[in-house]
């Protein structure tokens, strides 16, 4: 079966559902900026096409969702994929991503004589160093965000989300570093990475 080619709006909504794996219409609006009534209509149409399943008020992607996005991305981002400036920045992102994963692990776990134990967050200086590291790593993505947004303005929402979450962390909401259920640094980074790979037509590596 040939994968469906999606309209720009359908792509933007389905992309958020696939990135979040499970998303309410409000969550899609918060990330995409698409009007909530439009999101609801688009989700209903995507469900009719068998690309999402709505359960318990949330949309979940079906097996056909990723292939529909991939097929559409191949056309939509053909010029971006040929952009050497983007390619160079993406190569550098791989290094930054590895450093980010290490930083996230050091937020969750502390090395005690070679043994990893849960970080109980009782050492403010240690936590502040990790947060400072996260600031620096996010800052390093600036040129990549800019280059991608030059091809598609939706990528400009990532730095906006990072700015908001880092400001909230600096104001004391440290749960936003790694919370799996909020728009945390980890979730935003992970979504960006997956979005980037799909945009480029690449697969994750272990």
């Amino acid at each position: 079966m040939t994968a469906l080619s999606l309209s720009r709006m359908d792509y933007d909504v389905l992309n958020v559902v696939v990135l979040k794996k499970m998303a309410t219409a409000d969550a899609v609006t918060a990330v995409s900026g698409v009007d909530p009534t439009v999101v609801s209509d688009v989700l209903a149409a995507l469900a009719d096409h068998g690309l999402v399943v709505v359960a318990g008020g949330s949309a979940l992607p079906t097996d056909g969702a990723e292939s529909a996005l991939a097929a559409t991305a191949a056309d939509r981002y053909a010029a971006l994929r040929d952009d050497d400036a983007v390619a160079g920045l993406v190569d550098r992102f791989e290094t930054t991503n590895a450093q980010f994963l290490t930083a996230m692990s050091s937020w969750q776990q502390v090395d005690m004589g070679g043994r990893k134990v849960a970080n109980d967050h009782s050492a403010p200086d240690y936590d502040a160093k990790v947060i400072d590291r996260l600031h620096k790593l996010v800052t390093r993505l600036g040129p990549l965000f800019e280059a991608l947004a030059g091809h598609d303005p939706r990528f400009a929402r990532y730095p906006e989300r990072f700015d908001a979450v880092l400001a909230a962390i600096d104001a004391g909401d440290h749960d936003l570093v790694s919370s799996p259920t909020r728009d945390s640094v980890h979730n935003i980074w992970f979504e960006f990475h997956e979005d980037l790979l799909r945009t480029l037509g690449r697969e994750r590596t272990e």
Partner: protein
Amino acid sequence: MAEVLAEGYNVFDTSKSPSGTVKYLFSPADVISLIQSGKLAEHILLVRGGTTTFLAPALSMGAIGVITMSGAPESHLGILSREFQTPCVMTAYLTDSESRYVVGDTDEAHFEEIAKALDGRRVRLDCTDHEVGRVVADD
């Protein structure tokens, strides 16, 4: 002493020792079906990789334990399992097999062998060691 069926990286030390029937999840549809069945908490979830991103809804809805056949504790799934405090054994290998996962050099037979041996088996996860996570027979 209970038989250790498989071992791998222990993502985090925990005294939690969940037991359940191993359920191999191959695709997003498998995860949706399991969540909709209402039987998520009866299963230890087996997936192929640490980058198996479709598992996230299962973790947020109360998965009790996870086994992966590739991937590192620093991966996205490792980070999520620590956040949800869901015991997780990564890059598990069968203790009675010579086959081991090697990045970029592992054929399908490796994954199929593990899935065949564990899928449907009742097991318990032992994640008390700071390095090695164990999948123990519980039937």
